[in-house]
């Protein structure tokens, strides 16, 4: 039992680490194709990471230990958050370690240190990124908590494994899916904002007027940048996993039989790739919003999440 648990945790760690650069590459590829470019191969991010790991990092002499510790903290907290989410097996061994609130706050831990690292080098770019990240994070959190709670109500649990497991086995599903749809829309907007995608932030930009995440990590290089980039990819994958497995967990392994595990993994890869393609399409269709227009978008997400809650109670009577 214990051995199974440890093996599952290791397997999940490997899957998350291995798949996240692919997702980043896939989105870039989709965007390139939609812009009528050939674009780099979907496996380019792996090569980028390998190159960055080998390069000697340059660290600003202005910085303190916070700057060099942050990549490790960010990497660890994001991966820890990922281990709380069911990936290809509906019941994660670390289910007991934390529910959805713990996931949100683990991600917040990384954000906190990244904001500090942005300020540490003393350049105005980093400060600007940190300041913007602070406001975007503040506005996404309430919508995120509320939308997840609306889903948690259906399953009668705030533990991710329980939610996914019950939904996969079609337990406790309401006949009317409207609360789910609204919560889905809210969580999707939240995911775009939290992971720094268009229309909230543009991961491809290095223009000071528009950067948020890129501005915070501007001073990083070498292995530190590799860890930060990998963590950013992981965060994106964690959100995609969360969305596909909460709203469409079908196909996920509900037992530890080898056949079920293999199928679960294959279905998982197809689902997150599909959602990544959708994000790529959205990024190509929309322009980045002005910072102070982001408020409206996140306000919409909040209202949707609230409506999901109202609808849930009204439909249940």
């Amino acid at each position, binding site marked *: 039992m214990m051995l199974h648990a440890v093996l599952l945790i290791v397997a999940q*760690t490997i899957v998350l680490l291995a798949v996240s650069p692919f997702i980043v590459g896939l989105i870039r590829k989709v965007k390139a194709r939609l812009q009528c470019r050939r674009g780099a191969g979907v496996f380019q991010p792996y090569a980028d*990471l390998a190159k960055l*790991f*080998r*390069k*000697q990092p*340059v660290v*600003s*002499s*202005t910085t*303190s230990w*916070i700057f*060099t510790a942050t990549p490790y903290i960010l990497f*660890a*907290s994001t991966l820890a958050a990922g*281990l709380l989410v069911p990936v290809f097996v509906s019941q994660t061994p*670390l289910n*007991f*370690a*934390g*529910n959805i*609130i*713990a996931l949100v*706050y*683990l991600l917040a*831990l990384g954000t*906190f240190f990244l*904001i500090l690292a942005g*300020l*540490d*080098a*003393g*350049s105005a770019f*980093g400060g*600007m990124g*940190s*300041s*913007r990240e*602070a406001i975007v*994070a*503040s*506005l996404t*959190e*309430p*919508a*995120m*908590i*509320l939308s997840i*709670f609306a889903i948690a109500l259906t399953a009668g*649990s*705030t*533990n991710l494994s*329980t939610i996914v497991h019950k939904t996969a086995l079609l337990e406790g599903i309401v006949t009317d899916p409207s609360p789910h749809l609204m919560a889905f829309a809210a969580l999707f907007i939240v995911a775009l904002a939290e992971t720094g995608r268009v229309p909230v932030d543009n991961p491809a930009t290095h223009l000071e007027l528009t950067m948020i995440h890129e501005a915070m990590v501007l001073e990083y290089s070498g*292995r530190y940048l*590799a*860890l930060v980039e990998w963590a950013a990819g992981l965060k994106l994958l964690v959100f995609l996993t969360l969305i596909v497995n909460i709203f469409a967990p079908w196909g996920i392994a509900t037992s530890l039989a080898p056949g079920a595990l293999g199928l679960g993994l294959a279905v998982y890869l197809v689902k997150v790739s599909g959602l990544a393609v959708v994000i790529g399409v959205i990024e190509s269709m929309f322009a980045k919003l002005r910072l*102070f227009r982001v*408020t409206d978008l996140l306000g919409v997400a909040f209202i949707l999440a609230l409506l999901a*809650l*109202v609808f849930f109670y009204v439909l249940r009577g």
Partner: protein
Amino acid sequence: MTLLLAAVLACYTAGTLLPHFLRGRPTLQNYVAHGLACAAGLFGIALGAAGLAAPEPLTASITSTIPYLSFAIRLDPLAAFFVLTISLVGLAASIYALGYVTEFYGRVSLGALGSLFNGFLLSMTLVVMADNGFFFLIVWELMSLLSYFLVVTEHEKAEVRYAGFFYLIMTHVGTAFIILTFLIFFQNTGSFSFDVFRHPDTPLPQGLRTFAFIAALIGFGTKAGIVPLHVWLPYAHPAAPSHISALMSGVMIKTAIYALVRVYFDFLGGQFPWWWGFIILVVGAVSALLGVMYALMEHDLKSLLAFHSVENIGIILMGLGAGMIFQTYGLKEFAALGLLAGLYHTINHAVFKALLFLGAGSLLYATHTRNMEEYGGLLKRMPWTGFFFLVGAVSISALPPTNGFVSEWLVFQSLFLSFHIPSIFLKLMLPLAAAMLALTSVLALACFAKAFGISFLALPRSSHARHAGEVPGSMRVGMALLAVACVVLGVAPMVVVPLLDRIIAPLAGVSIADKVIALDGWALAPVNVEFSSLSSPALALLLATLSLLGLGLVAAFGGLAKARHSKTWGCGINLSPRMEYTATGFVQPIKRVFSTIYQPTVKLEQEFLEESKYFAKRQQFEFHIEPVFQKYLYDPVVDFFLAMAGRLRVIQAGSLHLYLTYIFVTLVVLLLIAM
């Protein structure tokens, strides 16, 4: 236990009296006063622990010749918990003070400072142990007055005098309402004994219960600093010496939480109308959100921390409010959970807020300014202080695996369990409160990222910061003690929860320790494992392991070659502190997004070169935030009283005969009424 109690009281009393006999020897006064306070703190921790473990409450009393007054003490688990909290923070503050007060040698009488410090701690300890309404009011008033004297320690500064005056007025308005609360109970029972309040012969009629509820909320709420009665905190807390601020913000305002729990759950126990809990919840949510929002705009580090006390009192009240709502609907286990969350956050806030105030005191000690815009780069100059402040900042931002996270997580759980409540209105309101709590905690994260980032990171912004050095050992030890407490309270909730359960079981009528703790103490799972679970030790372990994994990956893929150090790219010119983001700049987006709340006024004066209006010669920028509560709530009241006083001045002629006549007439009128 009686011996411990005697030792605590004796040490504090000796600490209050002795310094006066050592005039002219400040160093000795310092060691005697704070040494005795340390000893009392240690005894107090033991007393609190013993009181929590004891099967029966410890009682002691001395009757007096004054009617209705008896000096009665009762140490039940609730009181013991607060004694423990006060003593822990008191101990850290006393150790810290040994080094910190050297600043005041020659400027302030150390005898007075040390004596007041001990007296203040003594009065707080007695407040939570008092078992008689009359006695409670006496020590409560003593606590308020002593803290007032401590606030005005540096009374040569005009703003300190103003802060003290403001505090004095507010605290007395509060006391008036507290007296009113006790008079309601007295009128029903004919006694001031808490025991009689608890078990009256005839239960209080509903109308009077409601009256007592509101009077207690206003009275104790003033001390706790709930919105809109919070206005004194940001004046008084920064004005006091920092170790006093740590006590005021960390524990003094908690005595109000103690009193609210005592009055609501003990005296008025049992059934509440649903709107009582709802009011507490709303007050809590509004205090939390507005507290953090105003904190964000503060650049005086100690005022910022004071506003965060408003926020955290709000979070505590959200837990209590949820508990009261569940109590209404007979959901006893959930009610106990709400109470548990509130009390857990009480001790957590005491610890991390005291730590942060001590950290702010260290910055003040090293730089002689409270203005964050003049800090910067201090982590390299004060590595220990910086590290401890970071621990406090992470805790108050409720980030795992620290203590703030665990208690906020519990508050979230009690709000989420609202789907068991039959009322659909409350079913929607409690999750909405959870959303407000989420917003609050992320804004707190932003605020402390600002506080730490601007103060400790990047380049020094002034010569004060450039020449700062690490603080003396005793100050570091004081902070270290609280930093360790932050981590321990975070990763060992399975030890804390059963202790808190001993307090809650008699108040909520149900014990939930074995329901909240699951998996042999590894996880918290309120109130069943199916619904939610959290294991902060597992998360701490996970974070540590995965950090090592990160290090391992780096070593495997590229090796840990030494990094090259170089200057930050400053767009072609040398980087200077003036290029850094300021605290004001950092929060500008937040100010703009929430401008409805802040109502900012911006004043920009520019002078241009004659040749071109695109080159400014001189610029002056000012911005202010509308002090909404002061302007629309307090100023009209103050104006009214000033106008009344002006009218009444005509009867004040300065003639002794006239005053004697007034007294005589009053006496006659009173006698007539009495007949």
